[in-house]
């Protein structure tokens, strides 16, 4: 497969007195790939998306789409001339147009009536054609925005926090729908999200953004289990960051820039109670339980050892009470 999108040392600074919003970011996206750019608020992910869409001009670096350079020293290919389409975070459906008119609005959508009909069927919004955006639900608006963008048959589909406005139940359904649509329409997509679950369930490749920099690029599972720094580790939920020497058997570690120490990231579910066989040689941690919080199918236990606090997820059937003494070991197979 060829590189559809390539970013090389892309930099964008809004204010001379402030650090860059995007700082020397380089990565590429293959045809057919679904790439997620994740990071917390202000990490530069939306700016990056807008640079790719042509809505912002980078100060430095190069964006290449379909082998064509999108920006030079002072000139930039305008958004309307780029072979990509953007689904906005709040959908940006034109309030004065019906669903049908919104979908047919794209310049390249005019001759794609068959594709539009297929997309309407696929997203099950054919009945809403004559409604205005304010007359349909958030989930339906999201689908209309998606169909509008796909109807132009872009080489690259860009999505800005596509699921952030949906409630959790709807979000799971829409994730499946999106994946199905991308698969059926053979779409290359790049989306930004602050929700790592979106990245874990939908993306083939993940770019982790921190303070404008791409701090890690890899597959979702790779980033999850082998984070490049403590920020990337904590982005995917709770974790225990422990010095490497405490758990020499942990498969991955990283150098923490703040402390200068080599750390390992152990997720709360990666602990177990030592059994009689198999983990005699594993380093164990013994401490006092400080809190027990039920979390649905499991419970979250916070245990205080002599050196640190550990967060542990055990099944609800495990009997634990505040003040009890507990011993756990790292479960390398989890």
């Amino acid at each position, binding site marked *: 497969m060829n590189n559809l999108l390539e970013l090389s040392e892309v930099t964008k600074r809004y204010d001379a007195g402030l650090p860059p919003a995007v700082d020397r970011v380089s990565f590429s996206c293959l045809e057919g790939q679904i790439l997620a750019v994740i990071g917390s608020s202000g990490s530069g992910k939306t700016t990056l998306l807008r640079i790719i*869409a*042509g*809505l*912002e*001009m980078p100060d430095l670096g190069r964006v290449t789409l379909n082998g064509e350079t999108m920006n030079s020293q002072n000139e930039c290919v*305008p*958004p*309307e*001339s*780029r072979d*990509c*389409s*953007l689904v*906005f975070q*709040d959908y*940006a459906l*034109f*309030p*004065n147009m019906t669903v049908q008119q919104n979908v047919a*609005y*794209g*310049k*390249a*959508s005019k001759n794609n009536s068959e594709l539009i009909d297929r997309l309407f069927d696929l997203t099950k919004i054919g009945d809403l054609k004559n409604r*205005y*955006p*304010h007359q349909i639900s958030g989930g339906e608006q999201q689908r209309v925005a998606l169909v*509008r*963008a796909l109807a*132009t048959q872009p080489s690259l589909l*860009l999505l800005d926090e596509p699921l952030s406005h949906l409630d959790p139940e709807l979000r799971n359904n829409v994730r499946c729908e999106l994946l199905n649509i991308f698969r059926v329409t053979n779409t290359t997509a790049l989306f930004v999200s602050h929700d790592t679950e979106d990245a874990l369930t939908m993306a083939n490749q993940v770019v982790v953004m921190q303070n404008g920099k791409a701090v890690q690029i890899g597959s979702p599972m790779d980033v999850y289990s082998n984070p490049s720094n403590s920020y990337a580790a904590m982005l995917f939920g709770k974790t225990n960051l422990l010095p490497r020497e405490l758990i020499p058997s942990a498969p991955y570690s990283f150098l923490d820039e703040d402390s200068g120490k080599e750390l390992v990231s152990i997720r709360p579910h990666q602990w177990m109670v030592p059994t009689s066989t198999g983990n005699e040689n594993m380093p164990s941690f013994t401490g006092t339980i400080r809190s027990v919080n039920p979390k649905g199918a499991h419970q979250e236990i916070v245990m205080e050892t002599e050196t640190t606090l550990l967060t542990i997820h055990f099944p609800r059937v495990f009997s634990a009470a505040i003040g009890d003494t507990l011993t756990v070991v790292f479960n390398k197979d989890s």
Partner: protein
Amino acid sequence: MAEVLWHLGGSSDNWDHLKETVLGRYLKGSVILVFGTLILSVCVGVSTAWLVVCCEFPGRRFFEWALILPLTIPTFIAAYAYFDFLDKLTPALIWVRLNISPDAMITFGDILRYAVTILVLSFVLYPYVYLMARSAFSRQGSRYLEASRTLGHGPFSTFWRVALPLARPAIVAGASLVVMETLNDYGAVQHFGVPTFTTGIFRTWTALNDMPGALRLAAFLMLFILFILLIEKLLRSGARYHGDKTTGLAFQRYSLGKFKTFAAVFCCIIPLAFGFIIPVTRLVLWAFEALENNFDKTHFIKLTLNSVGLAVAASLAVAITALFLVYVARYFKSYIIHVSNRLAILGYSVPGAVIAMGILFVSGQINDVFDFIITGSLLTLGFAYLIRFLAVAWQSIDSGMERNCEQYNEASKSLGASAFISLFKVNVPLLWNAVLVAGLLVFIDIMKELPLTLILRPFDFETLSTRTFDLAYQSQIPESSVPALCIIIAILVPVIWLNRKMESE
């Protein structure tokens, strides 16, 4: 208004004569003037607003605020600044008479008269549309325009298909202000000799001494305005034109090529030149000329004090009344109060001449009943300003109260505070800014006002605007430029301050 409308079916000695000879001309003149001014003002206002909000070109930031400057020039003063414009076209009229026919010259002369009046009115009234459209384009924010661009549409297509339809309610609101100001105008149309309802009302009343006939003309004008208000209502209804919220993201403006940059600067400089630079330059030159000749400075200072004093006192009274009305309506949430508020602000749609007729009639009856003469007093004039400009203050204070005070009033009620305490301890401190804006807007309007002041002022009481009108009426155009410039200077400061405030908001 009821008093005026009552006379729709009344009798008058000259009515048959008026109906046969001039009513049709007044209607035709008003319609041509309104539609001509409306079309030109909307074209200029919308195109310049789009350019300064969405395109990048040299001088954009300057034009962004400079384009509102024609707002400082009252229509009648703009007309005086171009007083000799028609004279300069006389050779063309002579050519038509000699080469075509005398009848063709008359027709051509009428066309020129209308064209010049429409041009003059449009170049000083377009800022109403410009301000509304600029605000609408800015509020649309980046998202719809960016969405259009990412779907492959260039600037022109995005303007026609997205920005313009979304800004339609704001443009219609601005356009309706242009229509009301055009119908309200007396000085400019009288100067260029265009027959309209307003000139007809004055002529019937003063020249024919026929008050019932003038009232009946005013009633026809009211019907015309009600028809326009109905059209405005229809145009603003229908599909939804705004989203749920706007984004704070700055729009990356379209960068223009060399030719388009030149065209953009040209589009912005023409209305600014004709609406402000040329008239003000001519007025300044004439003012120097007048000051060199025996100019009565003492009288002039008295005029300025009269104008500013009257405008300040009336704008204070209007702002306080508006604050009281808005507060009562929002605090008590009564349907009757809401409806009476709406009725009270209808005055802005009614031309000054019509309000003046109505007030004269009512005050005449009060004089008779109470044996106490209020006609021709400052009280009557102040009351007329209140009726005409209450809506201006009301809108500003109402939106301020909606934004700032609604929840605090609820909290104040739940803490057991009385309506009086809530007003003075909660609302007034929070609404101080909105009341100031309301007062300044009314001040600007009163300084520019002519027909109401001309009819209702006390005997021998002059303001800058009535003095400008009188001098121009006596063909002393250079002398009239001094009070005219004073009006412009007095309005300029609040206009620039209000524009900055709008931009920052």
